[in-house]
Structures are given as C-alpha cells and as structure tokens.
C-alpha cells in the first residue's frame, strides 16, 4: 500500500484514480480482515461512489484536497452521519450518528475517503482491544498477539496495509501504544489541537483525536488537515496550524533531546536495548542528548486512572437507556430501570465507572480525586521546566512489546502500569508521537516516543521523521 502522501499526490496528478486507491484498500480489507478483525464495518459501495466523485471532479479540472483519494478508517467512537458508531459496546449496538464529527467533516473536505469503522476497546477503555464487543483485533505481525489499544483496530488496519492512515483517540496512550505494538506511526497532538466535537467522550480532560499512519510524513499531513479551532469544542485552541508536512528540516543537528532520569530503570532488556540504540542513532544524526528531571512523572499512572475514571463516571452517566442506548423494558421501578439499562456495559467499563464514582464520593474526594488533580499540576510543571532545557523528550512508548491475547487477564494493575510512558502525555497535555525503532528478539515491533510541548508538534514530527529515515 502506498503512503498517504504518495496516494494524494498520485490522485492529484492523475497517475492514479481515487477509485483505484480505494479499491486496493477494499481488496486488502476483504483479504485480511477475517483474520485481523481490524474493521468492524466497511462501506465499500459508498467509498467507491465517493472515490468516483473525486475522480469526476479532477476530470473537470477542479483542484482536489490535500488528502485526495486517500482511503482512511475511523475509530468506532467517531461520529459519521448516517453510519453506526457503537464504541464497540453492546450499549450503543444500534446507535446511528445523527451528525458528522468535526474530524470527519475535515477529512471529507480534504477529499479523503472513509472506508469503514475500526475496532477498539469498549468506550476506549483498555490497552489491548480485548474489551470490544466485536471480539479482539489481532496484531498483523503475530495474530496470537494483541494490537494494543484502545485504537487497536486502527493500528492493525494500517500495519496490515489495509489503509495508509486511520483515526484513533488517545486518552492515556490509545493511539501511541497500539502504533508501537503494530510497528506504525501514531501521533497525539497537544490537548486542544483537534476538536472533539462528535467524538464520544471518555475523559474530557484527556481525550484527544490522533492519527495512525504508515509513515511520519503521512501523519503530518493528516494532522495539518485535522487541527484547528472549532466553535463546537470550547477546548479547541485558536492558534494557527502550521503546515506540518512542510516543516521538516534538512537535519537535526543541534536538536536537544531530553532523556528523563531513571526512565529506563524498569524496562525489559530487549526494549531497553532498542531505546538506547535509538538514542545513539539520534546522537549520530547530530542531536544532543540531555538528561532532564521530571520527578513527578512516576505518579502519572495512578493520577491518570483516578482523574479519567472520575470523568468517565460522569460522562457515561448519560447512558441510562432513557434517551438513547440500550433499553430494557422489563423494569419494575425506576431504580430497576436504570440498573437494567446499564447492564450491557462490559467489565472494564463498569469497573472504571465504579472507581470514578468512589473517588468522587464526598468523603474520598479530597484524598483521592483532588490529590490526583494537584499531582497532575506538578507533573505539568515538571514537563514545562524540562522543555525550557530541551526541544523534545525521548521515552519508550511502552515498557513491553505486544503481549499474547488473554495475558494479564487476572492482573489489570499490570496493564494499567504499562501505560506509564504514554499517560504522562495526556496528564501533561503534551504532544506525543510513537515511531518504530526496530524489533525485539521475537520479531515484535518496539516503539520510540518523542514528547513535545503544546503547539510545537512540528518538533516531534521532525525528530521522528529524521529518525525514521535513518533507521
């Protein structure tokens, strides 16, 4: 499969039709999806119709958009008018989006072709795609392993060559961790860069839309299409969006790369070796490695689980079956009605709602929720100080490579701890990108992560671009 850039340029120039690009994607999905389960629904006729319209516009001499004819998948929590958006949950099994999310409008305006919705952990809660009501997506590198999560379907679709790019959402690493597990690029911009209007809310203080792409340049182009102020999302930033795909420099000589103190301490030998080699590679490209101190970052994971679960318990309270979502008609009284209507939530979703409500309970609030909010502030201050010294910060994306399906089932804490490197970005509102940095001894991809401050996504894209080229 060609990259985002290659397809867009070829369709714009006429050396490839949008229909050919979309047909290739549909053929690949047909061939591989039965094993990988990356897409939970595909819209072939509609996609081909739209591709034909794009080709017809080009034939008339119209200038096409920057993503002309690029087939993309969208995560199942992103609204596309007239199409199902179920969050891979029984709760929303029959929910049809009544309007377009802003990101979908932007993709369509850029002449991308949305081919289907991708698998995910239920309501974006999980790191393995195993909590989906449609069954897990499988890692294209090894079908017995998870693709990561929660945007596991989007990552698997890109890694398998079904589409060159897909949208995901990232609340604690849900774009970057599956990108690392599947060996593709995953970027989460800084908080507020992309509108969340029409994206089903999990944790409003952390949710961000992100991009999974087969290469850094494609991620940059997608990002510049998607970013920008939206009046329908009060958290979206007003600042100008640079042409990210045109911001790459000739080299990274003199780039200051921060290496957080002790960040390699708890890594397995395989991952550690790859991250150390990546740091050396950056040095050989002219970057300067600088040790930085982010002392509170080690508290990111517990902080993240309290804040996001508290927000989830509030956001998911709307699923009471009275207005939309699953509804049971056999109730005897109001309490019965609520409890029966909320029964379709899966195990992980129920657990997070309970955690959140417990943390927000009056007698726990100060010690639990408020303390987590204060620690978040300290983590943000740590990173702000570190970015006074360096341009980007380097970490592993995940402490491990993709694990086998069913692993850690009885030990959810082990899974939560694995989010340590990625959830720092959501807690701090930072921009983060995961880029492949080689394979471990079992042949599984390892991800390298760059963090940058808000509104400086071009710095992490540039570092990742040069690293990708040099690898």
């Amino acid at each position, binding site marked *: 499969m060609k990259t985002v850039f290659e397809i867009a340029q070829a369709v714009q120039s006429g050396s490839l039709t949008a229909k050919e690009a979309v047909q290739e994607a549909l053929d690949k999905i047909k061939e591989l999806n039965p094993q990988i389960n990356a897409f939970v629904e595909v819209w072939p006729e509609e996609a081909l119709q739209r591709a034909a319209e794009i080709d017809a516009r080009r034939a008339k001499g119209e200038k096409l958009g920057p993503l002309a004819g690029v087939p993309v998948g969208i995560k199942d929590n992103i609204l596309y008018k007239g199409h199902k958006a179920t969050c891979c949950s029984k709760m929303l099994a029959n929910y049809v989006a009544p309007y377009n999310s802003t990101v979908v409008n932007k993709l369509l305006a850029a002449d991308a072709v949305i081919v289907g919705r991708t698998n995910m952990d239920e309501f974006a809660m999980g790191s393995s795609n195993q909590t989906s009501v449609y069954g897990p997506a499988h890692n294209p590198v090894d079908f017995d392993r998870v693709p990561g999560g929660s945007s596991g379907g989007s990552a698997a679709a890109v890694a398998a060559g079904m589409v060159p790019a897909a949208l995901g959402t990232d609340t604690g690493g849900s774009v970057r961790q599956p990108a690392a597990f599947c060996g593709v690029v995953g970027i989460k911009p800084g908080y507020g860069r992309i509108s969340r209007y029409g994206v089903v809310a999990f944790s409003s203080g952390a949710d961000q839309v992100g991009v999974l792409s087969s290469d850094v340049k494609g991620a940059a182009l997608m990002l510049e299409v998607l970013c920008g102020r939206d009046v329908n999302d009060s*958290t979206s930033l007003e600042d100008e969006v640079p042409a990210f795909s045109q911001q790459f420099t000739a080299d990274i000589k003199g780039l200051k790369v921060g290496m957080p103190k002790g960040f390699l301490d708890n890594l397995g030998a395989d991952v550690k070796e790859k991250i150390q080699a990546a740091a050396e590679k950056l040095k050989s490209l002219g970057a300067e490695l600088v040790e930085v101190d982010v002392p509170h970052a080690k508290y990111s994971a517990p902080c993240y*689980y309290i804040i996001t679960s508290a927000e989830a318990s509030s956001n998911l309270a709307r699923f009471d079956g009275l207005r939309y979502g699953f*509804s049971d008609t056999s109730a005897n009284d109001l309490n019965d009605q609520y*409890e029966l209507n909320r029964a379709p939530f899966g195990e992980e979703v129920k657990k997070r709602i309970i955690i959140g409500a*417990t943390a927000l309970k009056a007698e726990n609030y100060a010690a639990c929720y408020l303390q*987590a*909010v204060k620690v978040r502030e300290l983590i943000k201050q740590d990173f702000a100080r570190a970015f006074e010294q360096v341009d980007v910060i380097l970490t592993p994306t995940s402490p491990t490579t993709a694990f086998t399906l069913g692993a850690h089932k009885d030990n*959810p804490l082990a899974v*939560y701890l694995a989010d340590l490197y990625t959830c720092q970005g959501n807690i701090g509102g930072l921009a983060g990108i995961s880029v492949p940095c080689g394979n471990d001894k079992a042949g599984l991809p390892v991800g390298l992560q760059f963090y940058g401050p808000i509104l400086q996504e071009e710095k992490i894209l540039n570092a990742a671009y040069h690293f990708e080229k040099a690898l």
Partner: protein
Amino acid sequence: MILEKDNALSCARMTKIRLRAEEAAMYEEQLKDLFQWVEELSKVDTSAVPETTTAHAAYLRPDEPVTQEELAERLVSAFSQQEGHCAKVKKVL
C-alpha cells in the same frame, strides 16, 4: 484506606450498576489493589498547589445565542416516535 469504608457493591449501587455476587467479589479484589496503588499519590507534597485547577486552557466562544433548528430536528428524527418537535420516549413508571 478507601475501600475499608466502602465495598465494591456499595460503590456500584451509587452508579446504578448491578453486580452479580461473583462479579462483586472480583471487583472487590481488583478495586482494593487499585486504591492501594493510588495511595502512592498521598506521598506527594501538594501543599503549594492551589485547590482549584482546570485540566488545560479552555477558550469559550462569545456568549451569543446560536440557532441550531436543523440540528434539533435531526436529533428528534433519530427517535423512533415523534410528535411535532418532541420525541416520544418510553414510559418509565
């Protein structure tokens, strides 16, 4: 410790989530581990951090009325039964 006062069943009840006995036992165990882990946060000195902090900056739009009649109609039309501009919902009690 948080779950010394509460238990999984009572927490679930607050959120209108009904747990079967075996589910309650499983959650009890997992929530205990989780809140024990979260207690690490109490080691952090936050005395200098103000009590009210927002996640990140928010930019509010001007406080002007916005007409979204078309959106309202589309939302109402998503219901299986309608009467004029109203959506008909199931009787609860």
